């Protein structure tokens, strides 16, 4: 069994070292918070859920199995917390299966600037725009894109976290990219 850096921190935390858990939180806070805020689209809720996540990880840490990767285990807890919240507050977040929402119309409604000159936008701006569109795509696609690119997980890990078959994960990510490409093409954003 290979013990990685995270597992060393967990062992130290279980021995009662506060600093170790703080270090573990610092390592993951950005990825977790970015994932949560893009899922729930509300900063206050995202802060609460992120805090609940770290609290929960701490309280169930003694149940962690060192044969598995810590990140996959932790992301699964995070995913379940967020999905539970979304299910309880369905009205505030778009439905898990709602594909009727057009990212294009949502972006327009948020007054995202679409003046002339998009084609000449720098890569950074294209990237920012891509991520704004990601925020608007239906949840069942968004969650997988976020896990793949924000949390940097492999298809197999995403499948384990979401309890979906690997094939479904791949298909949904492909479908999400098709949606993103279409939306970006409308604005001529991908020709740079």
């Amino acid at each position, binding site marked *: 069994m290979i013990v990685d850096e995270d597992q060393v921190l967990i062992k130290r935390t279980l021995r009662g070292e*506060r600093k170790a*858990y*703080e270090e573990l*939180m*610092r390592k993951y*806070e*950005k*990825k977790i*918070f*970015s994932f949560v*805020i*893009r899922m729930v689209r509300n900063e206050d809720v*995202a*802060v609460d859920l*992120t*805090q609940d996540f*770290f*609290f929960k990880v*701490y309280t169930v840490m003694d149940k962690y199995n060192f044969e598995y990767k810590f990140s996959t285990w932790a992301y699964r807890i995070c995913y379940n917390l967020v999905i539970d919240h979304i299910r309880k507050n369905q009205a505030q977040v778009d439905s898990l299966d709602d594909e009727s929402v057009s990212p294009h119309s949502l972006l327009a409604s948020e007054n995202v600037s679409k003046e002339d000159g998009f084609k000449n936008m720098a*890569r950074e701006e*294209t*990237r*920012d725009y*891509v*991520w704004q569109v*990601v925020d608007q795509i239906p949840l069942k696609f968004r969650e997988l*894109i976020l896990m*793949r*690119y*924000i949390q940097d997980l492999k298809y197999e890990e995403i499948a384990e976290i979401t309890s979906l078959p690997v094939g479904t994960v*791949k298909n949904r990510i*492909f479908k999400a*990219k*098709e949606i*993103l*490409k279409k939306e*970006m*093409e409308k604005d001529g954003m*991908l*020709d*740079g």
Partner: protein
Amino acid sequence: MACLTDEKILACGEGDLNAIEASRIRDHLLVCRACRLADARYRNLNRSLSRPVFSEPPAGMIPQIMQRLYPALPRYTSIIAAIAASLVFLITWIYVYFDFSRSSLVQALRLTADGTSGWLANIIKAISTVYNAAQAAYKAANALLNALLPAPMGTALLTGSVLAFSGLLAFLLLGPRRKRAHAEKS
């Protein structure tokens, strides 16, 4: 070869195809401008996705979690102050409750102690010792106050001290709870 589907282009970009299929797709891309454009667009999209825009969590988030996980322990000086305040409170309470002028309850306890067995007698002796100490402390304080100040001033001073110590005790006991409740609320 017919034009490529988006799925094929993406799969090729992800390295999911076998060598033969990938080679066919590369050949097609060389001759088909439309598919080449689609491929370029997916590459551009993948490049943007691979450099995600992270959201910065609030700076105070981790300290708040740490406070929730590890509530602050009272400091050494606070513990000593709490013990001192408790002693003052206890002595005052004994004085008021047992009525020093007549001492009927303590005297009765002392009498009872003679006829009882081991542990109860020890408890009564302990109470008597605290009582004696309290009485002595009271007498000493009273003598000092009588010598230094007129009687009403001494009483006011004693009452003030008792109130101050009680306030300090309440602050020390309730302070950490209030902080925790505030942290959870915020």
